[in-house]
């Protein structure tokens, strides 16, 4: 497996996990719903952001995955999906294209 395929694969898995987070949010109510749907959006945003700033992408991953995982720790599903988002999302961000430097004036 070459690096490009590996990057696309980990990115696809991260997007799939973001969709699962969104599904959990849709199944929930109140705060958990907001955390699930908002978390899914942040995790999805982290993938393209990684091309510009890996640090910002990791921040988005953490901000997207951790709140629901903590708030719904008892649900088993949310902390497990959150943990996978951090693991696979970090892999996708790390193996993706390096951030591009701004062009010289």
């Amino acid at each position, binding site marked *: *497996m070459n690096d490009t395929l*590996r990057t696309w*694969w*980990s990115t696809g*898995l991260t997007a*799939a*996990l973001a969709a*699962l987070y969104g*599904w*959990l949010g*849709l*199944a*929930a*109510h109140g705060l*958990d719903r907001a955390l699930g749907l908002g978390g899914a959006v942040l995790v999805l945003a982290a993938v393209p952001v990684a091309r510009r700033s890996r640090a910002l992408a990791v921040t988005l991953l953490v901000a997207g995955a951790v709140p629901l995982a903590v708030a*719904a720790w*008892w*649900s*088993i*599903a949310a902390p*497990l*999906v959150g943990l*996978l988002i951090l*693991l*696979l999302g970090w*892999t996708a961000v790390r*193996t993706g294209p390096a951030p591009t430097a701004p062009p010289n004036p």
Partner: protein
Amino acid sequence: MERGSVDNKPVGRRRFLGTAGLTAGSVAVAGAGGLTWRAAQEGVFATGTGPAYAAWDQWDRPGRDMLSLLRAGVLAASAHNTQPWLFRVGRDHIDLYADPRRGMGSMDPLRREMYVSLGCAVENMVLAGPPSGWQPAVTLMPDPARVGHVARIRLSPAPVAHSPLYAAVPKRHTDRGAYDTGRPLGAEVAAGLRGQIGADSGVRLLWLASEKSRNIFGGLTVRATRAIIADPRQAADDFAWYRTGWRQIQSRKDGITIDASGQSPLIRAAAKLLGTSREQNQDGWLRATRDTHVATAAAFGILLVRDRLDAVRRLETGRVWQRMHLWATTRGLAVQPLNQVLERIDREHAAGLPPHFTDAMADLLPTGWHPLLAFRTGRPTAGTLLSPRRPAEDARLT
């Protein structure tokens, strides 16, 4: 070439590990997908929501509407949450009928708990009268020839009036969790509960708060739970009212659920995700009875009557129990019916079994009085969750 082959080894190993990691990740994501689907299907994140719980939001609507009484009636306590009631609304009255399809079989062979449950519904409806602008007048068992017709509540217009017990109707829930053993109950609790017994109800409260009496009744309750589980017919009839699937809860809108079991959120989520067998359910019931229900009770209470087969006394006992539970709710107390001993006594009578529990219980009771309902009470340690309810419209005869 040699240098190149040496350099390629770490690269190859890294690629292999990377591929293996992503393969494992793919499997993990597939598993997470299954878990997420299961969590959504089984309502892990939807506790207390959906059609099965809508009655709790619909109960108090403004205006002089006889249906208001029905909406309060369906929120009454009932054994195993069987909700064995049917209503017919007349021009100036409401008739309450027993629904024989909602019996508990060998768990309630003498229909004691069914009539007590119906009495609870009567009391909630009576309490809902004045806030809706009705003055209720109750006749229990209005037609002795028709045992299924348990009450007629005549309604006449009256000024709107509210009561603390009525306000507690939507807050009253059976608390099956642990009670606070560090905060005993004062004598005022027994007095307050006795204050809910009407002078002409024919009901008496036996209060078991001493360590000795609690140990005796608690031990009997654990033994009775074991006996029910060991009795194949009773065990099957008991389990028939446990609702283990979210879809089943939403369609049936009755029965005992894992959410109302008093278990921790983690245990409830695990039970929903993995499912529970009858054996697991019974093991959990016995363990909870022994280690939580009996072990943390601050006191037990038993409601007694002279004639345990008298339908009117059973209904009056239900009315008393409903008022007691509502009063306890207004005081922030937790209560839970604990009727295993009585269920075994009824089983012994109905099936001609040796009177082990009948005799053991008789030693606790005053002469000439018979138990119709037993409960535990104490200070709560956690909040309670809603139990499913059939809306009033579902229980209304046309």
